[in-house]
Structure formats: structure tokens, C-alpha cells
């Protein structure tokens, strides 16, 4: 093979043909003759069809790396955790729906919410335990309560929520019990216990829905950490929308009004948060708009819009409402997987670790008026 052929293989995103690399220090896509080996990461790339076609108007960012290998390690969590992000949010949304339904005399919402919350809690428990490297040691999670660990805090929130939501759901079975004997006593005792559990779960629900955002953001995974201000809102909105989905699926039209409003508010919160995440994080927004994560988040957005439209416009139709509910649930699932995948993608490419940190150093150097390479300055 002739020497140049290897390096001049066409690249979809190259602005100029990539020259042959120099050995040793990272990727070589934009090397000046005799200059250091640099990699060019294009910033602010838009999805196809954006203004200016596929070419970015932002000057390319350069970076170097060790043989293109990642710097930070991607989370080893399997899809169990992405699924838990959904089921945890679903549990929270359902519990809030149950509490609201019970307080305002809508038994269908109460029942659907309580049962939905318990189902989601059980699924969550499975996902959380199954994802551990040592599942039999899951109780070690309760050895300590550690505020610096969102996972520890989350374990306690989830446990408290699970107990209360479980009690509420079990109480739904009270009318099935016989009226006499020991079970008859249980039949009388269960409803108040269930009510207490239901409101207890409603108190823990917002924490359950939002701590998972802190869980992801409190990592060195570049795109998760960068999104820490908005992620709780994305997850809270997504949880509300999925809870509303349960209500729309299960409740007759005359009781589903609050679920519809929850769907609208939740979707608005989620879409606004996701929009900020996808547009305001510079190069770190990129993983959320490309590849698998981009597809999932776009699907989530479309399904959310569809679900909200159906919930509002199809309020008289039981079928349209149920379909809207289904659409909202699927949307929430897609959004959670999209955020999950976006973060993983950002950890796997050294570009997302090096370029933002270089920018940070350059800014600090500019504000200090001194050398950006020195690591002796106070980080900003």
C-alpha cells in the first residue's frame, strides 16, 4: 500500500484532508507540518439540516490524547440503571397521582397510582439489585447513610418510599378480605394504614424522582456533570409525565383531568430542561444530539409532544387518552435512556474530557494573565 493512502481515507467530518499522523501523541487530524500532533474536534455541531448545513461556524477545537483512548471511565451500569431511572420516576409520579386522586375523591386515580407505584418499586428493586457486581451484598447499601454519596441518600429515600408506597398498594386489597375473623380486622385496619402510606410516599416521591439526576451528575462523566443544573428538572418533568401517563391509561375521562394537567406541566418542565441540556453546554451538549442518545432523545421529545396533544385534544375519548398515556410513558423511557447513553458517549471520547478542561485552563490563564499550563492556580 502506498504511504499516503492510509491517512487520506475520506472522513465524513473533515474540513481539510487529514495529513499523515506523527507518531506518539494522540490523534492527528489537523497537523501543521512539523507541528505538534493535534486532534480537531468540531464544536457546536448541529444535527443534519441545521443552519449552514453540516458545517459548523464555530472554529474547531484542538486536543491531544493518548492513542485516542478515553481518559475518564464510562459508567459500568447496564441498562438496568437506565431502566431504573424510568421506573423510579414512574413510581414517584404514580404515588403523587394516587395522593392527589385520593385527596380530591377520584378513586380511579388513587387505585391506579397506588398499584402503579408498587409495580414500579418492585421493578426498580429488581433493576437496582441486578445491576450490582455482587447482588447478594445489596444490603451493604444500608450500612451507612452518607450525604456525599447520592447513591446512599437515594437508597434511603427509595427504601422509605418503597415501604410507604407498598403499604398504600396493599391497602387496595382490603375490600377483597372477608368481613369477619382475623382478616376482618385487617380489612378494617388496612385503609387508614394505606392512606398514611400513600401520603408518606407522596412526601418522598419528589426526592425519589430528582435524586437520580444528582446520581448521574455527581460523576466525572463530562456530559452528565455539565448538565447538573437542568437534569433534576428533566427527571422531575419526566416523572410527572409518566405518572400522568398511568392516570390517563387507567382512569375514566371524568376523573382524568388532573392527570392531563400533570402531563402538560410535566412535559413542559422536561422539554425545557432537555432543551437547555442539548443547547447550552457547548461541546458537552453534542453527545445528547448525536448517535443513539440523539435518536432516543428526539424520539422522547416527539412522543411527549404526541402524548400531551392527545391528552389535551382527546379528552372525551377513552381510547385517545389511553394512547396518550402510553405515549407519555414511552417518551419518559426514551428520554431516560437517551440521557444515560449521552453521558456514556461523552465518557468514551477523550475529546469531551480534554477540550472543556483546556478551555477552563485557558479562561483561568486569561483572567490571571499567566501561563495556562501551570496547575498551581486556584481553579475557578
Amino acid at each position, binding site marked *: *500500500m502506498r504511504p499516503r*493512502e*492510509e*491517512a487520506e481515507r475520506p472522513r465524513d467530518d473533515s474540513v481539510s484532508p*487529514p495529513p*499523515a499522523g*506523527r*507518531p*506518539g*501523541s*494522540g*490523534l*492527528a487530524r489537523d497537523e501543521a507540518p*512539523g*507541528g505538534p500532533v493535534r486532534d480537531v474536534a468540531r464544536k457546536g455541531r448541529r444535527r443534519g439540516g441545521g443552519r449552514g448545513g453540516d458545517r459548523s461556524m464555530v472554529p474547531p477545537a484542538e486536543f491531544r*490524547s493518548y*492513542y*485516542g483512548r*478515553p*481518559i475518564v*471511565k*464510562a459508567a*459500568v451500569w447496564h441498562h438496568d440503571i437506565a431502566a431504573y431511572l424510568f421506573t423510579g420516576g414512574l413510581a414517584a409520579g404514580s404515588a*403523587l*397521582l394516587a395522593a*392527589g386522586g385520593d385527596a380530591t375523591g377520584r378513586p380511579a386515580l388513587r387505585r391506579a397510582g397506588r398499584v402503579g407505584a408498587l409495580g414500579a418499586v418492585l421493578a426498580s428493586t429488581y433493576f437496582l439489585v441486578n445491576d450490582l*457486581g*455482587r*447482588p447478594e*451484598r445489596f444490603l*451493604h*447499601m444500608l450500612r451507612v447513610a*452518607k450525604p456525599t*454519596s447520592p*447513591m446512599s441518600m437515594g*437508597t434511603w429515600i427509595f427504601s422509605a418510599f418503597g415501604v410507604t408506597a407498598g403499604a398504600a398498594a396493599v391497602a387496595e386489597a382490603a375490600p377483597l378480605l372477608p368481613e369477619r375473623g382475623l382478616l376482618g380486622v385487617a380489612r378494617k385496619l388496612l385503609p387508614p394504614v394505606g392512606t398514611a402510606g400513600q401520603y408518606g410516599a407522596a412526601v418522598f*416521591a419528589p426526592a425519589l424522582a*430528582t435524586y437520580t*439526576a*444528582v*446520581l448521574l451528575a*455527581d*460523576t466525572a*462523566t463530562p456530559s*452528565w*456533570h455539565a448538565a447538573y*443544573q437542568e437534569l*433534576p428538572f428533566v427527571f*422531575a418533568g419526566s416523572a*410527572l409525565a409518566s405518572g400522568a401517563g398511568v392516570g390517563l391509561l387507567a382512569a375514566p375521562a371524568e376523573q382524568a383531568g388532573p392527570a392531563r*394537567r400533570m402531563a402538560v406541566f410535566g412535559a413542559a418542565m422536561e422539554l425545557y430542561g432537555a432543551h437547555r441540556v442539548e443547547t447550552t453546554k457547548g461541546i458537552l451538549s453534542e453527545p445528547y444530539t448525536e448517535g443513539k442518545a440523539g435518536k432516543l432523545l428526539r424520539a422522547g421529545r416527539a412522543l411527549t409532544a404526541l402524548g400531551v396533544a392527545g391528552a389535551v385534544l382527546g379528552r372525551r375519548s377513552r381510547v385517545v387518552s389511553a394512547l396518550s398515556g402510553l405515549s407519555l410513558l414511552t417518551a419518559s423511557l426514551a428520554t431516560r435512556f437517551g440521557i444515560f447513553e449521552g453521558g456514556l458517549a461523552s465518557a468514551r471520547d*477523550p*475529546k469531551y*474530557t*480534554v477540550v472543556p*478542561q*483546556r478551555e477552563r485552563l485557558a479562561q483561568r490563564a486569561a483572567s490571571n494573565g499567566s501561563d495556562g499550563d501551570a*496547575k498551581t492556580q*486556584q*481553579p475557578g
Partner: protein
Amino acid sequence: MAGPNSLYGPLDPAPDAGYVDAPPRMGFFTDTSVCIGCKACEVACKEWNLIPDDGFNLLGQSYDNTGGLTANSWRHVAFIEQPVADRGGSTDTPGAFAGLPVGPSVSAHTAVVAAGSGQDMGTDPGIPPAVDALAAAATIAPPRAEPQFLGMPGTDLPGRTPDAPRSDFRWLMMSNVCKHCTHAACLDVCPTGALFRTEFGTVVVQEDICNGCGYCIPACPYGVIDQRQDDGRAWKCTMCYDRIGDGMTPACAKACPTESIQYGELDELRARAQHRVEKLHEQGVDSARLYGESPDDGVGGDGAFFLLLDEPEVYGLPPDPIVTTRDLPDMYKRAGIAALAMAATVLASFLGRRG
């Protein structure tokens, strides 16, 4: 005990973790300017700590077939081959090797295959494939049309021939290791308390507690800690906690033949490193710089710090790591606001008109 700098800022970690009368903080100073890439540290570490093998791979990365730090590699020797003329390095005759095959030891073909495939190190995520195999391959000089005669090995002692030209080509070697950060994100986020701070200020995983939740792995800003596939737990360097407690030197530092890896009290190592970097600057090695020695950096200073000859990212190190838990109070605050917004939304939804 916990103070205002417990999450971020300069700190002596052992007293902050609650130790009374803690011994001085111990650390590593890895001076890459004298590393010869012998990998004795990797071997000694494996032997002492009984670490399983990580596969016998050929990665197409110069002499580095370890790839990086994983659960099964607690020391990793990086090899970087680069021309330095443009970087003001110590060469007498830039371009002396022009036209000669000074390129790395593998072909671009090898590199494409190696970079594009994940290597099974028996760990998760281990050494994943490079995202852009083609770009990684471009780090390799293009393949030559035919084999070339490289000359015979010299028979004289090095330096005996006075006018042997120095090339503009250099090899960087660095023995990487867990940084034992002042503010260790892995330790902060561990939900079981398996990771703990020792009295020497180092960070160690208790293998009988770890349940393999994996949270420490994405939390580490250096990508050090990793999970073993067959046993599910997270593993990393302990700075030979079982040796230093008895006043012994960690295995890697003990085995290092050039004292590239130095073990000792951190304060003393910092002074020694400062002296060394000044000396190198005097000798014209302008690219020498310390990495991770400053208590004012984003992780409050590393317990294991380095003297590097190029930018950190060239060695696979983050240029400006910041412990993720610095922002944790702010994250909780944002989550709290979102939670309140959620509760308010539900109230508004149910208090509205019936229907």
C-alpha cells in the same frame, strides 16, 4: 473532622476523616524524566497484590500492551513516541533522522485493528476501543512500501562516540497510578463505605464490603478505578496499605530501578519534586512540569503526583481535573428546587377545576 474544605480546597485528608494523631501523609512522586519503561513496577505490583493477569494483548500502542489503569493493572507504564524539535526539546540536530524509519514499532494497519477493537482485560470498562479508530491509527506513521535496513546495533558504550547526532525524536514513558486524591470522588460517592481514607491519607477499597455498585468508576476524574468482571467488585491501587503500615516501601517504588517512582512523606516529596523541576529547567528541559502536586488544584492535590515532559493529556491524564463533589451542594440544591417544583405542579394539577 469535617470542615469548610471537606469537599474542596486544600486539606490534610486523614485528620479531616477523623484520625487523631495521624501519621504524616504518605505519597508517590513519579518522575517520568528518569523512567526507562521497564515495567518492573507493573510486575512488582501484580506479584505483591496477587492481581490476576489482564489478558496478553497487543494494543498497537508502542510498547504499551497494558493500555491503562484497570482493576487488574494498578500501575500502568505509558509509552509515547514523538518528534520534539518543534517543542523546544533537547536536540542538537533537528531533523537528523529525516528519511529514516523513526516511526513507531507498529503499522497503521495494526493500529486500526487494535484501536477499533475492545481488549478483554477481564475488567469493566477496562480498556475500551478508541472512539475513532482511524484517527487513533493516524498516530502511527504510514506503512512503508518495503522493509528497510535499520543498520546494525552499536557495539560501543553509549556516549563513547562523541559526535553521535541526537535525533529530534523522543520517547516519553510514565508509570501511572491511582492519585490518592485529597478530595477523592470515588470515596465520596461510595454508598457502602467500602472505600475509606487510611491514616496515611491514602484511599483503599475494602474488598469484603464492596458490593460492586460501580459508582466509584465514573466518579474518578482520572479514570483509575475499575471493576473485575469475574468477581464484580471495584479494585485499585492501595499504595500497598499492607506494607506501608509496617514501614515498608510499596512494591512498585521498591522495584523501580531508576527511582522514577519515589515513595515518602508527601511534604518531603513535594519539596524534592520542586527541586527536580527547577534543575530540569536549568538544564534546558523547558517542558518539565509538575502534575497534581499543588494542594490548590481541583482535587486538593494528589497523594501520587508526577513530573511530566509534555501536556498531561498526552499521557492520558486530564489537564484540569476537578473533584465532582465540589458541586454536590449545588446539585442537591437544584434537585431540591426541582422537587419543590414537582410538588407544586401536582398541587396545581389537582386544585384546578374538576374534569
